């Protein structure tokens, strides 16, 4: 009983429950939903969001905020593809290495500004978002890069567990989705089992308290924002591999959706709380519900209504739970 209650109190269990219910409901309306094809497609189309959400999770656990990651991804994508088209003949690994380097540089700039000027991270990252994005647009004049090197789409097309579907085409779990899950696993381990990962939680609870137990605040903040930049960069390479074109405004604007998924996954904006598993489940719930809009032929105009309602709904549930908890605090052991 006790274990059951504890499990039920966990955000992850609640999300898994919701996912299960949605799957059952949607599957009863649409035969196509549970097909192998559809499932792998849903996963692939939400892989970029899934990767971005890991970086945002890291930042939110530390009590910070990052809305610049889309701009970092956008800029990185352009630089990497441009370099690989004009200066280097490379492969997907070189693309990732270049991207990660570029992402870390921009992420570190965020980290330095946030640590040094002690301003709310949202203001700093709004500023850097516009700076990164604006400068890129000015330099590139918004030109699209249509012809990306072929190894990008080969990467996104690679599948494992492939079978031949009824149309005679290969279908299977995309390698990019595998990359997402592997990254999730790595960061779950880092956050759970390393001192550095735990320091992210410590800072999120209270910077003063963290400093008092000897956490190096500066290095940890630089780590958080540097890694968040790198994750955004990895996401951008996956994005261009799937889309096969560099469109300079195709990523910026997705910030809120990613943040929403992380919040839905149980991370607390005030810091110190959140898990990779919860975030992955949050993204999955998003993916399933958005796919159901398509399957049920609901206009895509409803998509934002839907995300907004989910954000408001999930924060309301959190808030109500906290209010209930507070009511039960024993201030005085009253004698009977």
């Amino acid at each position, binding site marked *: 009983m006790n274990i059951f209650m504890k499990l039920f109190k966990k955000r992850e269990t609640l999300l898994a429950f919701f996912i299960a219910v949605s799957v059952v409901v949607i599957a009863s309306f649409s035969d196509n939903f549970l097909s192998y094809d559809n499932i792998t497609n849903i996963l692939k189309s939400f892989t970029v969001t899934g990767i971005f959400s890991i970086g945002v999770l890291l930042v939110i656990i530390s009590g910070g905020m990052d809305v610049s990651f889309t701009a970092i991804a956008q800029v990185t994508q352009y630089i990497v593809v441009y370099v690989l088209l004009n200066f280097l003949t490379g492969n997907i690994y070189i693309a990732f290495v270049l991207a990660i380097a570029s992402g870390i540089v921009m992420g570190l700039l965020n980290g330095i500004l946030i640590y040094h000027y002690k301003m709310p991270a949202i203001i700093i990252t709004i500023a850097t978002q516009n700076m990164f994005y604006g400068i890129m647009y000015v330099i590139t004049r918004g030109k699209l890069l249509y012809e990306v090197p072929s190894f990008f789409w080969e990467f996104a097309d690679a599948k494992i567990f492939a079978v031949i579907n009824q149309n005679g085409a290969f279908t299977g779990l995309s390698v990019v989705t595998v990359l997402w899950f592997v990254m999730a696993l790595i960061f779950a381990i880092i956050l759970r089992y*390393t001192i550095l990962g*735990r320091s992210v939680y410590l800072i999120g609870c209270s910077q003063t308290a963290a400093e*008092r*137990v*000897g956490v190096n605040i500066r290095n940890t903040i630089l780590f958080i924002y540097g890694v968040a930049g790198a994750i955004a960069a990895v996401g951008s390479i996956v994005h261009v591999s799937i889309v096969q074109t560099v469109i300079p405004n195709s990523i910026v604007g997705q910030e809120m959706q990613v943040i929403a998924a992380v919040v839905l996954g149980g991370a607390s904006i005030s810091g110190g709380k959140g898990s990779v598993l919860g975030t992955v489940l949050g993204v999955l719930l998003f993916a399933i519900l958005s796919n159901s809009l398509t399957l049920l032929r609901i206009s895509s105009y409803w998509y934002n209504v839907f995300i907004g309602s989910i954000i408001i709904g999930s924060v309301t549930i959190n808030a109500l739970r906290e209010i209930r908890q507070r009511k039960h605090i024993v201030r005085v*052991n*009253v004698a009977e």
Partner: protein
Amino acid sequence: MEDFITVENISKNFSGLKALRDISFSIKKGEALGLCGANGSGKSTLIKILAGVLSADSGKIKIEGAEMVSYGPLGGIMRGISVIYQDISLFPTLTVLENICVARAIGQGRILSILGSERARAEAILGDLGVSINIDSIVEELPIASQQLVAIARALNNDSKLIILDEPTTALTSKEVGLLFKIVNKLKNSGISVIFISHKIDEIVELCDRVLILRDGGLIAAKPIKDTNLEEIETLMVGQSLVYSKMDDVDREAPVVLEVNSLTKKNNFKDIGFSLRHGEVLGVIGLLGSGRTELALALFGINAADSGKIAVDGTECRVRTVNDAVSAGIAYVPEDRLTEGLVMNYPIRENIVLATLDKFKDKFTFLKRRSMSEAAQKWLRTLSIKTDSPDNIVSSLSGGNQQKVVLAKWLERNPKILILDSPTVGIDIAAKAGIFAILKTMIAENGMGIILISDEIKEITAYSHRAIIMRNGRVAKILPKDEINEERIRAILNEQKQTK
């Protein structure tokens, strides 16, 4: 016994202000040292320097004979110095186990944080402390007292040789204080030094071997406890001794201004009943966790009661919000001036008029700046608040003058009942007397009833006409004037300590 730490000629300035001047002392292994001083005397700066969070401008620190200049918080922990700060400084969303182990893991420069192997060690420490806390529970779900114990367990897990306890008893009930004292004695016996900071001097006298007294950043005295006493320490802290003046006698026929009947709030207090006459000072005393502050907050509408009756001047009132209480004529001077009493970065004028804004509206409902200033000026004069203009920021005033601003805010409303929660904490002696002089005049002028909540028994004995002693959320006893004396009150409180 040899010295664990020796401090020589430490000084520290903050933007030109001297926070510490030329402090020297040492602590022996296994010694409990009390640290006393009024607010702003430099206690917290000294702690932070010892912990390595701040570094001194000049002077030397020797730890076990080795000379240090500055060592940083991690260095402090590594060398065996742990501080349990007043705000506890735990990580509320993490488990007890992790809170206990994390500092040590960081200190050892480990890369992985696998707690399995440390579970037994942490459990053993909690066991040694004689407490039963589920090691896997989340800290924010524990009561404050248990959190404090977790902080102590963390310090022990760091292999501390010096544990600094900064006001550890403020949030503890008497039973828990007793447990804490036992633990401290245990620590001393195993050779760990303790610095104990408390504004309750009787606790220092009870627990410590030696006492250091700080005033205005300087070390005034360092005495073995057996060569001094409570009164002397108090006098040394403030530089002069306090004279308690008596209140005027209350008119026994005066009408009842406040009548409280079977007031109850779950998990806060139960079945509270008393009455207060015009012009009467009703003392309320009780240990922490007795429900006295909760009761006051209920009367003021912050923490409304579940059931029971409150009647002001014979009319029953519903007190669900602060506005209800204030319109009924109840005012409350909170214990914590900085966070509850004043808006610190705003001018004195705005703070004084905040509770009476309706009075200053013109016919277009705009605020009349001039009459606001005049009202503030009037109170600056009446209460002799030392400042040159009501435009000055409240935080620029001394503690005593700040408290007078809080009083002015309520006196401007001319309340029927004024509740004062520990009104003289952190205020120097001269200002203390001043505040009671003001109350005396105000009682004489408009006959308000006063409820005085205080930890200082002397304040209660000197000023109250009747005294309520609270225990476990209930009224344990109401003492009439002639029975209010220190011995009697101490006896009742001690009896409570033992029965718990």
